[in-house]
């Protein structure tokens, strides 16, 4: 939430007309040497044409700082120097994780000369790169060129089903007739944590892909089965709980001009997708407002009462193609939780085209549970590739007021009758007692009783 308001604010403040990212346009590109940037001129050029403010720095440049006075100095960082042991003036992995914690986005490119720095950094995100000087190798799918062939340049086409990240042509699985898009990849493979929902393996190996050493080099120790197939990650994307995005690619080469322009490959499109996603140019989801109120009166009280009927609404918009659009889906769910969810319903998308054209409003008519306590109203919307939307409101549900219960129950009519009959009977008896005369005849049997009676009578009258 907070982050989003910040981001929204930032995008307005920094909103120079050509800014494409939802979070800012300052990009730091770290390359081994300043002149090696020319290998990536196409990639970097595309960033600049998309309106980013790209600063290219050598890895060893000591003036590189991720933070200035506690503020992020850049919005995005692209690490293209896989062999560098540290950056700038002793920037370690911790500085980069802090950068991401602060909301910075990061593209990390690796190669088979990977430094410990990168290993340590990647491990924090559940990405474990293979040992040094290993390669992702595929003897079936590789870059076939006219004169030479390199089995280390894998022609990978195993894309994740993540339409929020990749363009539709990568995501389509059914179209057998079309030639499958391929991405040329030359570099190191990594293991990814398949159980981590925050990590999406965008590009994985084919069944014939494995991780190993090149011919002529020392073969790998035969301790365990080499990484291969689907579990071999080539490019993975990670989104933090704070919605910062980090991509790991095992290959710097795939960003290079050489492979980007390779015919028959879709590197250009793929790299652009990854960069766009990572740098918050697409699939950025935000909640622009949410409200709940009594359906009868439309007001929002400080607390609800049990079994109240309420309306819950939330507005969602998504950022793509340089603008915020309504986010349309049919799986936005609302929960009312007190330790366990008491209510979980799907909210319906309603058209609210009039007032705010860039948001979609989701609406739910909810009958609160017949249970008092402190509930959390929550919309916890987490979908692969999209930013997390987790909106929580703590709402107290009070029991009925002491006079809020039904006054007369039809089931209790016999009891009401009973009490009123009792009252009337008592009054009648008292009246008879008070106003009846003493029996005139005082026989012996009644003598004892009559002693008491006048006393009681006198008392009643006096009071």
């Amino acid at each position, binding site marked *: 939430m907070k982050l989003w308001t910040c981001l929204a604010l930032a995008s307005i403040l920094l909103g120079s007309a050509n800014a494409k990212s939802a979070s800012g346009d300052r990009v730091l590109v770290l390359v081994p040497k300043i002149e090696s940037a020319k290998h990536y001129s196409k990639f970097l050029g595309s960033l600049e044409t998309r309106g980013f403010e790209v600063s290219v720095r050598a890895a060893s440049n000591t003036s590189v700082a991720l933070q200035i006075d506690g503020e992020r100095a850049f919005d995005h960082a692209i690490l293209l120097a896989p062999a560098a042991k540290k950056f700038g003036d002793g920037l370690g992995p911790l500085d980069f994780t802090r950068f991401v914690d602060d909301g910075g986005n990061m593209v990390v490119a690796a190669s088979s000369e990977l430094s410990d720095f990168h290993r340590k950094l990647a491990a924090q995100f559940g990405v474990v790169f293979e040992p040094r000087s290993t390669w992702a190798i595929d003897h079936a799918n590789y870059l076939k060129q006219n004169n030479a062939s390199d089995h280390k340049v894998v022609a990978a086409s195993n894309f994740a089903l993540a339409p929020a990240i990749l363009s539709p042509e990568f995501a389509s699985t059914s179209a057998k007739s079309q030639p499958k898009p391929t991405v040329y990849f030359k570099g190191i493979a990594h293991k990814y944590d398949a159980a981590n929902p925050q990590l999406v393996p965008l590009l994985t190996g084919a069944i014939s892909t494995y991780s190993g050493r090149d011919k002529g080099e020392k073969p790998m120790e035969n301790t365990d089965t080499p990484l291969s197939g689907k579990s071999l990650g080539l490019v993975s994307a990670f989104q933090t709980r704070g919605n910062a995005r980090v991509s790991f690619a095992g290959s710097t080469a795939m960003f290079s001009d050489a492979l980007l322009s390779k015919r028959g490959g879709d590197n250009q499109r793929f790299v652009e997708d990854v960069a766009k996603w990572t740098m918050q140019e697409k699939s950025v989801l935000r909640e622009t407002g949410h409200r709940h109120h009594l359906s009868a009166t439309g007001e929002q009280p400080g607390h609800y009462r049990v079994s109240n009927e309420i309306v819950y609404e939330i507005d969602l918009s998504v950022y793509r193609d340089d603008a915020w659009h309504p986010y349309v889906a049919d799986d936005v769910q609302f929960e009312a939780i007190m330790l366990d969810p008491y209510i979980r319903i799907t909210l319906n998308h309603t058209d609210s085209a009039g007032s705010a054209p860039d948001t979609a409003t989701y609406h739910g008519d909810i009958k609160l549970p017949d249970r008092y306590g402190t*509930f*959390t109203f929550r919309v916890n919307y987490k979908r692969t590739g999209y930013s997390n939307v987790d909106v929580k409101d703590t709402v107290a549900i009070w029991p009925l007021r*002491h006079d809020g219960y039904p006054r007369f129950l039809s089931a209790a009519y016999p009891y009401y009758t009973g009490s009123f009959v009792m009252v009337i009977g008592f009054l009648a008896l008292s009246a008879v007692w008070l106003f009846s005369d003493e029996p005139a005849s005082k026989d012996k049997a009644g003598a004892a009783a009559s002693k008491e009676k006048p006393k009681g009578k006198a008392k009643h009258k006096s009071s």
Partner: protein
Amino acid sequence: MAYKVFGLTASDQTSLLRIAILGLISIVAVGSRLYSVIRFESVIHEFDPWFNYRTTRYLVDNGFDKFWNWFDETAWYPLGRVVGGTLYPGIMVTSATIYNALHLVNIPVDIRNVCVFLAPAFSALTALATYQLGKEVKNATAGLLAAAFIGVAPGYISRSVAGSYDNEGIAIFLLVFTFFLWLRSVRLGSALYGALTAIFYFYMVSAWGGYVFIINLIPLHVFALLVMGRYSNRLYVAYSTFYVLGTLASMQIPFVGFQPTFTSEHMAALGTFGLIQLVAFASYVRTLVPSDQFRMLIRLSILGLFVVGFGGLVLLTMTKVIAPWTGRFYSLWDTAYAKVHIPIIASVSEHQPTAWPNFFFDLNMLIWLLPAGIYFSFRELSDNHVFLILYSLFAAYFAGVMVRLILTLTPIVCVMAGVAMANVFEIYLDFSKTKAEAENMAVATAPAEKEKEKGKSQGGAGEPPVAVAAKTLYETAGFKRFYALFPKIVVVANFLYFLCMFQWHCSWITSSAYSSPSVVLASRGPDGSHHIIDDFREAYYWLQMNTKADAKVLSWWDYGYQLAGMADRTTLVDNNTWNNTHIATVGKILASDEDTAYELARRHDVDYVLVVFGGMLGYSGDDINKFLWMIRIAQGVYPDGFKEEDFYNAAGEYAIGDTASPTMRRSLMHKLCYYRFHEVMGPQGFDRVRKQKLPKDITLDNFEEAYTTENWMVRIYKVKDLDNYGRSHHAVSAFEGPRFKNDFVF
């Protein structure tokens, strides 16, 4: 006695004296309760008073209607507490009324001061009520003595010092006054006094759960009188009026509701009500059909009815039509019951059985005057005296079972002591007959007197040593008078000495034992200097100032009311221990290892964990010492994976530090208490409560130290948020390195 002083007749003089004495008693009663305010400050004490104070503030701020319907969502998170329906509103309404009355006449008193001084003010009223009670059962002398006793008796002071803003503060006054009204209504057979009894009974019901004592004792009194064949129309009028009005009135308190109709605690009253109707009917029939055998028949039928009624009660209870007795009541009969079945009740120190010295500590000489009072009551044995005897016996029994019930014993002990003393003084302070006695003595010179005289001359203090001239001395009128006076003087002097000692004892106890607010502690340095230890308020203030307004703080339930009252933060459990499961969950969190605890704490949206730790200061009432109860309570609800034995080390000791059992060392409580403690105590440091060596290298990853007070008494930890990257916090710590690496360089 026809002398006039200042133009007042003798009876006017006595009433003036009485008023003056009662005024002085009131002043002493209030004055001796002010130690805590003078020593410390005008602050609310302990735990429960903080809840009462907070609700009173709510009542004053929001009015009665809102108070009545108040649902407190910040207590028992996330369950909440229906405050209006689960408290005895008497004390809050009383304070708010006083507050509003004072403001009406433009006396701008803070509500806190009204609350702080409420109990002392009511203790003065209690003294007056006790005077009335004593006067009712004996005479004004007994009343004055009883009033003087209750004014300073430590058994009552312990619950009514200034700042001890608890239900008992007003309830004892109501208890005594209700009993007084009851006795008067029985004596007079007056429906008016019966109705007044019911009204004060209603006030009592609104003020304290101890009203159950009244609603059982009065029927018991009636029942005893019936069995003794002392049925009278007076009794019938008094009890019928009281029971009908009192029960209907008591049902207006939401917390009581329909309980008088279906719980076992109230069944005795209902049964007795039915019984007295039958007896009344029978005695009416008897007036019509006089018979000598009738009396016998009635007694038998009463017994028969009692047996049938009791049997029916048991049957209905067994078939769950009538709610069975609550655990607290079972523990009144079987002191071991609570420990086995309901650890949450046994864990409260004031629910423990009373140790013998406690009686002397709290009641001093009154405790041995109680049997004397019972004896004198038996000698007269009017209806009222039957009541006194029953009250004494039952209160004495209950006081023996539960420490805190000494409180209900105290009034009757004071009254009985007053009765006993009054009897003693009646005989030994009556000098009008001495002259006549002396002359009678002169006539009969018994040989036994010689021996007595000898003993006396040895022990007698002010007597001239003239035993040599004995023979003639017997005959002198002066000696005879002296001989008649001397035993009286000895006895009276003796009792005066006891009275002085009693007052001295009471003041000393009050000053040394019962005047500590327990929120603020005091200690003395070796040089006699006075230190105020204010860690609790420091911690609560820190929470109030530094955490979000809706932060949820987990602590053991003891501190729930204080947290709500002083820190104004949401708590999971508090001193209103209505939900055992929730308390057990908190116990489980504190007793589990770090990861389990973290998961549970996050599930309950806990933001901060607060523990009280006395190892630095030697404060023995800390959480480590309470920890065994937490384990027991948690074990009762979550039997799997919890065993009390696991927390003892191989030697079977409840140890801390490196000698502790692995489970103990892993437990969150142990970690939170000792985290970084060795850094401040040094390598040779030890825990000053447990007198054991400190553990070293306590790692804590899922929780982060947020605040520790000056004397380390309160430690507050923040529950870390989930990691941004989904790592475990252990992995984060391993990656980021030790957090406090260079903190202690000096």
